[in-house]
């Protein structure tokens, strides 16, 4: 089993920006992404019982090499951190046939 070290970038933020960030991530070099609906509470976002109209939250993950991870995090941090509710972090992962996720 050959594993290749890459970075896992996770971004959690308000739904309205998450599809845009996903597309921007692809432009910055990611080969794919994984997106899911979550319920979140943070300094700028409150969990609301009635989630129909209230602010909704999504989680977005990219498996990418370090330089793409940095590009994505820098972009997100500049464009979205000021005005939108979101959090972003990086973790180390070992990826199966990982080379194919490097463009």
């Amino acid at each position: 089993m050959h594993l290749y070290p890459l970075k896992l970038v996770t971004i959690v933020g308000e739904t309205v920006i998450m599809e845009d960030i996903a597309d921007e991530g692809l432009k910055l070099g990611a080969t794919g992404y994984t997106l899911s609906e979550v319920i979140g509470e943070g300094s700028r976002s409150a969990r609301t019982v009635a989630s129909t109209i209230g602010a909704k939250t999504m989680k977005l993950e990219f498996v990418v090499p370090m330089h793409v991870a940095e590009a994505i995090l820098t972009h997100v941090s500049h464009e979205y951190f000021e005005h939108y509710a979101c959090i972003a972090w990086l973790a180390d992962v070992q990826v199966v046939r990982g080379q194919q996720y490097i463009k």
Partner: protein
Amino acid sequence: MTLSIVAALPLWAVVTGEQLSRMLESLERNLLTPIPLCFVLGIVCTRIHGGIKIPKELYLSIAIFLLMSIGFVGGHELAHEYQMHGVSTIWKPALATLFLGCLTPLTSFVVLRYIGGMSIADSAGIAAHYGSTSAVTYAVANSFVEQTNHPANSFLPTLVTILECPGIAIALVLGAGLSSRERAAKATPERRHVRESKLYEALYEVITGQSIMLMAGLLVIGFISTMFMDDQAFQPFYEFFQSKGMLFRGALCIFLLEMGLVAGERLGDLVKVGPFLVAFGILMPLVHGFLGAYFGHAAGLNLGGCTVLAAIVASASYIAAPPAVRLTLPEANPTYSITAALAITFPFNIALGIPIYYEMAKWLGAT
């Protein structure tokens, strides 16, 4: 704007005696029915931390059904109207509605920015909500006038469709334009470019959004099928969508229950938004409602039609506007706009506004 307030004043001076008691009665008839009572149940439930949870998908499904219904029935009625009168009865109300759709975001913006002293982004953001309309307020107003035996002109759903977009678009362009000028000094060209592309994206999304696509789409479908199908084949579709039918009324009950749950949560934010916005959320609809009734009457609408037009002009969007504003004017605080639209203006219109607009229309001479 100040002009229209002045124009509205006399109305208040003459509200006396008989009229007041008639209003109380129509209030009772309006309020003690399942639709507003379900809204109240929702609020009560949230305030006491009760356990009602409407699945998001049920809420979305009902919204889809209501929009399709409004469109389909609208297209059906429009076909009848068209077969009888051509466009002669429709073009004036349509123009009046378009005019109101362009006017209301501006009046809202001016009041918020220059009387309320709010930031450009917040003013434009809230103006986008009040420039558009709430389909559910339409549905409630429509059943109100039907219950008073003054059904609105058949083409009112068409007017709802016309009113959906322009207000949001105008407010967004205004807000983006003014605030980009402000930021011009510090913003890099690249960031300005990002902003602009988000604006175009948001505008396009407003114009091709779910509300418009479903209402306008089903309007066309209702129109065409009325023209080409025979009555018997048309019947089951009409029964399914018709706005006096059990499905529409029942769906409205569940929808308003959920609206009450959401509004109840937002009530806590009333303190955060402050007294100016609370007053705005009540007085602005009265002004817009008066304008709606006035121009509706001028364009030849009947009593029910004036009332409903007033209600939809007075109503504020809380479905199409929020994401568009969030994307285009991120500095705008969404708590302000959503609380005003949902926890102040919406319940005000449902409970008190609609009967008031009815009296306004009557006072203006609509029959």
